[in-house]
């Protein structure tokens, strides 16, 4: 009991309060949760019954660019009952939007390097619903970029998509890259 002095208790109390705030309250407050405008069941579409692949809805253009998130007009090709919504359009939210100064060619990674989409985006194909997009109130980027682990210690694709993750992956594969490889 002699070890438990007022000074030590107050120090530890302060430490505990700060830790609780930093590890629990701060991450919860930092991100705001925004639901997607419409729910979507990836598992049904990519499952055995339908059998669609990632590129059926997220295709590459003729010049190798990634087509992004498909408009509802593309859904109408199979779902005629959605034609009314196709006209109004749907503003999907991106989980993994990168900064403008980062240049990421999907074609080079998925076609040339043969990386599976799941390597960076996780296994979306097995999800039955679209989780809300958590947007950083300060930086404006999705939580998928930094990752769910606020410490940043147990991350790496598909848990996070920071520049260090790109660098680590390039280093693992012996891909030589300088600043201007990604930052044009």
């Amino acid at each position, binding site marked *: *009991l002699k070890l*438990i*002095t*007022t*000074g*030590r*208790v*107050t*120090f*530890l*109390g*302060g*430490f*505990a*309060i*700060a*830790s609780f*705030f*930093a*590890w629990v309250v*701060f991450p919860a407050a*930092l991100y705001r949760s925004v639901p997607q405008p419409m729910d979507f069941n990836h598992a049904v579409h990519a499952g055995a019954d339908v059998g669609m692949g990632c590129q059926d809805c997220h295709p590459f253009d003729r*010049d190798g*660019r990634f087509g992004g998130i498909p408009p509802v007009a593309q859904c109408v090709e199979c779902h005629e009952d959605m034609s009314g919504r196709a006209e109004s359009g749907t503003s999907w939210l991106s989980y993994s939007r990168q*900064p*403008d*100064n980062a*240049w990421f060619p999907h074609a080079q990674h998925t076609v040339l390097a043969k990386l599976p989409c799941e390597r960076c985006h996780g296994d979306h194909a097995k999800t039955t619903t679209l989780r809300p997009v958590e947007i*950083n109130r*300060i*930086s*404006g*980027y999705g939580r998928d970029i*930094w990752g769910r682990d*606020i*410490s*940043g210690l147990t991350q790496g694709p598909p848990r996070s998509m920071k520049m260090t993750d790109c660098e680590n992956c390039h280093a693992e594969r012996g891909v030589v890259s300088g*600043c*201007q490889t990604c930052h*044009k």
Partner: protein
Amino acid sequence: LGNGFSFSRRDALKFIGGLAVGAIASPLPWKLLDDVSIWTQNEGWAPTLPRGPVTTIRTHCPLCPAGCGIKVSMVAGSPFAITGAAGHPSSGGKLCALGLCGHHLIRHPSRLTRALLRERGGTVERSLPAMLGAKTLGSWIRQAARSGSVIAVVDTRPERSLSHLYRSLLSGLPSSSYVALEGERIPVEYVLERTDGVAARAYADLARAANIVSFGAPLLEGWGSVGALSSLMTRRDRGGPYLTQVEPRPSATARGADKWLQPRPGTESLAAMAIGRAVLDGLGERAGGAVPGGDGAAPEPGGLRLAFADVDVAAAAAACGLSPDSISEAARRFLAAPSVAIPGIAPGCGQAPAGLEAAVMALNAVAGRIGAIGGIGLAKPLAPPPGLPGSDVRTLRRFDELADGSVGLLIIDDTGAQNLPTAAEIARKLDRDRTARVVLMSAFRDEVLVPWDLLLPVEGPYEAVEEILSSADSPGARYGLSVPLSSTAPTNPSRAGALAAAFSAADPGRAFGAASLPREVSGLIEGRVGAIFEAGEGVIVKPGESAPKAVREAGSAKELLTLLKDGAIWLDDAAVDAAEVRGSLPAACAAVLEKAAITVAPPTPHKTRGAPTRVSLEPFGIRALTACAALPPAMSKLTAESDLLPDSRVAFMNPETGRAVGVGDNDVAELVVDGKPTNVIAVWDAGVLPEVVHVSARADRRACTIMGKGAAR
């Protein structure tokens, strides 16, 4: 727990300490730091790209004569990224750092939109609309023509259709001169008897040379095309070719060469003559032996022996500060394998020593390297655009061919900014007794290179269709186009339009004939492409898409123009028949060598004075940094943070500067930049501008002080 738990002020401090330690030990401050830094990048004050479909344009980089193939990514009509075009025959998909940032120039902070006029001798500037600036130039042309002083147009990227238009504009003017300056070129006039400038185009066949002797050419820093540089470095990684760099400065090329011969500044021409003499002696010893390369023209003994007769290898080596053995070794290597010698000086390194080009070409000629594989190749030149009247204007290939004090009006096109004459050179040529003026046609405000009286705003890079012609290392003829990238760029008059308007304003009576000439080059370019199609020679290559195909397969001249605007390039590697070339040293070369009087005076002893004196610091050694009047800010940052810069232990200065600031040749001097002192060895070099110190230190020009500290030895 008893009475021991009273809460004192000390406990409160410990509580705060616990809070602080808990916060620091958590990710909170680091995450906040990360997010806030991203926020500063993305807030309203930071420019952001518009959202929209991404498109790709294939074209050529117009920033230097290398003309690399590029792929430009565009969003909503604005370029946001440039990468090399894979499979391009001259650049091979490679691109330099400046080229990668080229699209930034469209929004450069020093971009001009209005003309700037300086009153004579003053520093006050007046801003005018661009076309009013052209009319002002017109009145100056009229004044200069009436007074009989020389009107000279300096073209820093010759052989374009625009260049031919300049010559036609000047044709009707009395006392006019057209000065065609090419920084990187193999001077054909020293290797051919036919010196009319259109008989052949000489190039350095670096791709097939096994031994290269470079006299100051920044080979490993970007001489010639980036593709050739990349190929050269790849070949050197595999053991060849052997590179000897003859250069006083500790440039990146000198440090990276297999052998660095460091002559005293100004003695490079003498070093070339000494190697040439050793080569001639070696050929004599081999009586009857074959000349390396085999297919080169045999040297004509009379002219060469005369040129080298007075050169004593040992004496020349001593004057250069080199050992005779190093000269003999270079000559032995030159004879042992297919070799080529190239003259050059990196932008920012002052002026080439007198007679350097002639001496280096004499070295090539004496070794039979003219027209030989891996030597100096000779290609057919590109014909001028049809439709322009012939010009009788006096054409000069070097700025110093203009008579000192003779020029009344100097008009400079800065397209090839790396070839601009220096401020000191310009001052020497101007006729200050009359109202001599300098007009700079540029897209950017330039504070350092050219002392202008009128700055005429014209289109910048990627804002007009520009021609891509052969570079110093292109085997054969080449023709491509660079197209405008952004519809949002500021609109300035074209160079042709600005100058044509000025000449028309100067010539209300149409005495010069300028009114009948075209005001834009688009028609001339179409005519040139049409002539290429009609001739039917060469092939068209569309990088990354198809194999080379014959020109006629384009179908029509119009289709060929469309292909060229879509990133294709025309190539014709047909060589000029070597039998037509006389491998002797032509009279022009001999005359230059005689005039240059390649001798070296010993440096004047000078007493060092220990007082800091203000001078200007100029970087050297990185071609891209000094090749463009306006550098993209990202380029400066990249260079400052990279290991591109060699060390800064040697400072080069003009002897006049050394005497003025009290720093002798080979003295130690203290150079203070931004308050940080550095000890340097001062080297006197007549090629450096007065009041300038060349140190490989930073990307930007800036002021510094220098103070002598005594002799180094």
